[in-house]
């Protein structure tokens, strides 16, 4: 099997001592995927940090149509007076977790101050809701246009069908169990198998691309009073504006979780190879050396 755009690398690989394999660069990521990937990195970084600035203006989450100070919040990040100092506390339901130094109360300009998320996690670092909103809404547009370009390309070029949709064999429980076991032992596919994403990867990417990211946009729109007038069904889908705000926060948390795992996998499965493939498009795999 010879990919027209792949080429062999001159230097033999470490396992080449046995004379069995050599490294070969295969073309993995088309230009549009690489560009939209890095644009997405920038957008998600700014959207998260400006989003936390906006959250800090009212650090409580409710369920339903309304929610304010007097209403029961099920997530709440607050500061309480504690003698001459303050302590931060994060409440999830009836569970209260002391989070002084990180959530509720954290260092700002050398003093412990009242802030839900710390200054190093917000844009701007100081408290400024209006600026946070400007950054959030501008980059929301960039994120949506970038995402649309990616999705249109993915459908038109058959990218999703060929690379991301798992086949029936891959979805078989025994196969999935095997992959999960391999992942847990940090054993990554080699050789021809490494040409393709594995099933767990495919499922993770598909859920982020088609569930979590669209959910962020839809719940974001539901927080807009004008959009609720234009598309009132948004309120029915999410059970009210405050539910939508809560889902927006939870979904953002899941995306942050995905990014942590994604970056960990990139580091563990060959950081330079992965980075090169997302910059130049070329990914090195080990193939059998032909005589």
């Amino acid at each position, binding site marked *: 099997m010879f990919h027209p755009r792949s080429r062999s690398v001159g230097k033999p690989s470490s396992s080449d001592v046995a004379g069995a394999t050599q490294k070969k660069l295969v073309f993995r990521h088309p230009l549009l995927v690489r560009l939209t990937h890095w644009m997405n990195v920038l957008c998600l970084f700014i959207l998260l940090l400006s989003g936390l600035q906006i959250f800090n*203006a009212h650090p409580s989450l409710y369920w339903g149509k309304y929610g304010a100070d007097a209403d029961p919040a099920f997530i709440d990040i607050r500061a309480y007076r504690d003698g001459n100092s303050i302590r931060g506390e994060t409440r999830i339901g009836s569970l209260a977790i002391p989070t002084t130094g990180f959530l509720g109360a954290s260092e700002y300009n050398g003093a412990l101050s009242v802030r839900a998320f710390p200054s190093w996690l917000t844009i701007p670092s100081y408290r400024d809701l*209006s*600026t946070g*909103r400007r950054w959030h*809404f501008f980059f*929301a547009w960039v994120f949506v246009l970038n995402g649309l370009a990616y999705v249109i390309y993915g459908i038109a070029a058959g990218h999703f069908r060929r690379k991301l949709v798992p086949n029936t064999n891959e979805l078989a429980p025994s196969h999935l169990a095997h992959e999960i076991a391999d992942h847990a032992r940090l054993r990554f596919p080699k050789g021809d198998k490494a040409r393709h994403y594995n099933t767990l990867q495919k499922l993770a990417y598909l859920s982020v691309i088609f569930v979590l990211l669209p959910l962020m946009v839809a719940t974001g729109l539901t927080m807009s009073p*004008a959009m609720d007038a234009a598309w009132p069904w948004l309120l029915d889908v999410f059970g009210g504006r405050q539910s939508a705000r809560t889902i927006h926060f939870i979904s953002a948390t899941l995306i942050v979780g995905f990014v942590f795992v994604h970056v960990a996998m990139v580091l563990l499965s060959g950081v330079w190879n992965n980075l*090169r493939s997302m910059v130049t498009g070329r990914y090195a795999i080990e193939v059998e050396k032909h005589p």
Partner: protein
Amino acid sequence: MIVSPTRRRLLIGSAATAAAALLGGCDALVDNQHVARVLEGAEALNKDLQRALLSDTTLAREYTEADMSPVFKANGTQHPEGDAYASLLDNGFADWRLTVDGKVDRPLSLSLAELKQLPARTQITRHDCVEGWSAIGKWTGVQLGTVLKTAGLNTDARYAVFHCADKYENTADGQYYESIDLVDAFHPQTILAYTMNDQNLPVAHGAPLRLRVERQLGYKHAKYIMRIEIVDSLKAIGRGRGGFWEDRGYEWYAGI
């Protein structure tokens, strides 16, 4: 080995420098006026798109009494300072007058009783604060469009400016004011409310009269209205951006 050790060190070094620059540079970018101007461009895009999706009469959702917040949070000024407001309040606002002037054919001076004689509209709507919370309440008042038609607008009228009794900040330009354009001014749900939850409008919520402009955020809903001025431009009022919070960086179009 595809990446040589020196190249690797260089890459690690540049990545670390880039990360540091990114974190340290955020505030520098935020404070840059050119960057701010570019980002503000999204506001016009949001306004144009939302206006395109909404007809001039598309209503914000109206709720039932069962949906109402048990406690409607009061925000912003809770009680205007000064003797002028205190004496109006002492008298149950019997001496209060709403002035309607500027680019109108017939300037008006209306008492609360006169406003209450005009056709009323009652609506149970959701109030969305820019901070993120929401409260649902019941409002009764006269449609702003009714008042403006009575006054008769000049052909160059563009905005309704609401001058309020409260000084939100103790500075020369700290007086609260707001403005909306004629699309929102003549929207059926844009009312000058004098009751809230079937009671006279409480002081904390803007007695005797506040604006409801249901397709925008809470800070547009001016409380303690004393005067409605019709203008062709917002430049000459306050710092020229159309409202107290707008003058302090918030969007004039607050549909999002």
